[in-house]
């Protein structure tokens, strides 16, 4: 006896999932878990550490000092007339968020294999949680940047702040681009590392190389004409320059490059989503 008309199933398990079947409804059902995972990430990150959240300040400050000495004072790279520490700090803060998103989401499948091997929930929760919980760290570092800006503009007079209020409105857009782009790369990599483990070693190395291809330690204005297209092809270039522009009032900001960056971000994210979606359902067999 089959009453096919009245059949209603909550879950249908099939071998192949469509390329474009993202199961967003299911993701929504697990929003409580997402929130708890975010809270867990934030709370546990600095438990039982000596300096606790102070590390959030120490790391960018030390990096800024090193960059100022090496790239600013020894290599004498231009900083677009901005105070060197401010110039580097702004780049580092923005780059840090992006690279954290990328590296920590790139291990979201293989790193959680023990958990995923025992219980099902939308796997996307994990990378999504990472991207959102990393925001806390980013905001704290932005606070550091703001403190530095106040110091430089009020006490040393070396910073001539001419930031328009309207430009600050770009800030959330930049955050979205950095987060989504990092997540997109991370998803692609996490899908690939499941099959080919050796890629994992390439990630931290690759991220460092990518940093040198982004205007973190140099302004776009000193890039020679013939290299400019390559530097601009990196979708992070416009983000870093715009971030500097809205925070320090100096930087290469225009709608074309930012528009390109937004477009590429969605392309990368979409590819990541497709691959991740493809791999997640069976990856547990191959870890």
């Amino acid at each position, binding site marked *: 006896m089959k009453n096919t008309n009245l059949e209603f199933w909550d*879950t249908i398990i099939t071998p192949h999932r469509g390329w474009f079947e993202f199961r967003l409804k299911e993701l929504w059902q697990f929003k409580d878990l997402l929130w708890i995972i975010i*809270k867990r990430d934030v709370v546990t990150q600095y438990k039982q550490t000596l300096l606790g959240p102070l590390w959030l300040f120490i790391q960018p400050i030390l990096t800024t000092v090193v960059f100022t000495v090496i790239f600013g004072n020894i290599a004498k790279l231009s900083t677009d007339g901005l105070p060197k520490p401010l110039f580097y700090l702004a780049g580092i803060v923005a780059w840090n968020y992006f690279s954290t998103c990328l590296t920590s989401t790139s291990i979201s499948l293989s790193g959680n294999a023990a958990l995923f*091997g025992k219980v099902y929930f939308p796997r996307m929760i994990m990378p999504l949680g990472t991207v959102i919980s990393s925001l806390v760290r980013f905001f704290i570092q932005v606070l550091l940047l703001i403190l530095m800006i106040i110091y430089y503009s009020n006490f040393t007079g070396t910073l001539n702040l001419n930031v328009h209020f309207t430009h600050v409105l770009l800030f959330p857009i930049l955050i979205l681009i950095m987060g989504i782009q990092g997540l997109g790369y991370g998803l692609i990599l996490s899908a690939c590392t499941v099959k080919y483990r050796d890629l994992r070693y390439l990630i931290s190395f690759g991220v460092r190389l990518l940093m040198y291809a982004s205007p973190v330690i140099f302004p776009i204005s000193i890039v020679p004409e013939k290299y400019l297209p390559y530097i601009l092809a990196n979708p992070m270039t416009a983000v870093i320059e715009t971030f500097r522009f809205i925070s320090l009032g100096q930087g290469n900001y225009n709608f074309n490059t930012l528009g390109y960056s937004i477009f590429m971000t969605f392309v990368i994210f979409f590819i990541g989503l497709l691959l991740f979606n493809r791999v997640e359902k069976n990856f547990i067999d191959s870890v």
Partner: protein
Amino acid sequence: MSAVVKIDNLSKVYRLGKIGSQTFSSDLKRTWARIFRREDPVIKYAEKNIRKEKGDSEYICALKDINLEINEGDVLGIVGKNGAGKSTLLKILSRITSPTTGSAKIRGRIASLLEVGTGFHPELTGRENIYLNGAILGMKKSEIEAKFDKIVDFSGIERYIETPVKRYSSGMHLRLAFAVAAHLEPEILLIDEVLAVGDYSFQQKCLGKMKDVSKQGRTVLFVSHNLGSIRALCDMVVLLEDGMIKYHDTAQNTIEYYRNSFIRDIGIKSFKIEDNLDAYVKDIKVTDLKGNILTIIPLHEPYRVVVQVNLNQEIKKCILGIGFSTLENIALRTIWSKPADLERGEYEFTFTEENIFYTGKYQLHLGLSMIDGKIPIQFIKHAITLEFEEFVDSQIAIDSKSGLIINQGEIQIHKL
């Protein structure tokens, strides 16, 4: 009764050997087939999942063409040898991995008790972990809040609820984890006893919880090697063999069928010549007192176990031991011959039993040793299967529940 789980033609193929670095060419072949809607080439070549045999194909079918319908409120047991596909089936149903072909449809929330303590974070407190673990298992935050006090109460660790879980003893850890899982209240519960960790009392707790759940009219899928608990808890039982459903019937019938599959030989069996040993068992037979070979021993009739032993040399204080066990290998008793100094040659050891009987089927194991059993010579596991009649006649039913029957035993009657 409506089906809450419906499995159609479900198969799962695993690739043996270097899992994880799937070759590009086989990936390509499969993609090609998918595009042109042909049969998946991998599944066509995949062999039956037989552990012992060495196959040519590097693919094996962990599950093959499983069709199963489970109705609401059913308690379905799944039995089978190791590697028969039991856990794979549960894994597919709990969506940890996906099938290679076929489909499974599920109505209601599904949860499994093998996930006890999954996702506990050592740095978080008990309270925080209840929320984390509950959410991972699919509970909503409001649900956890509503059940929070009950969970803490059940776990019995109120005092430590604000302590990080890493400071917990393993017992406390387990208690908290189980308390969360027990309050999940899914419509369908999956239990894999094979994978269940914990001590005996914890396992009993799992079984107890399972009974409660089934009483509430929920559906339970229970995988176990323990036929006793399967029989006690399940209505229907599925026997999986080499990834296929071999038998699907009531608990009683399936278990009977499954047990029969362990039977090797009945009546008489010969063993191979062992010239390297000091002595070896040549053959064993089960007979009546006249020497006729019995395949089924009638209840209340005496029977004999006759063992022929060949001595390649002289043996001091030779002993033959006969062990009795159930088909599930639970030892029942052991008897042995008086030590005897024997010359080289062939001997017949005869064991006659007149007033102790069994019902059902049993395994016999043989052991040869010398010097009062201090030096073993040969041990034969599952030498032969004894089968006793289950019924005396149609009036008095004596089945395997009667256990060991001591006929005309020493029960005296006094009128008071």
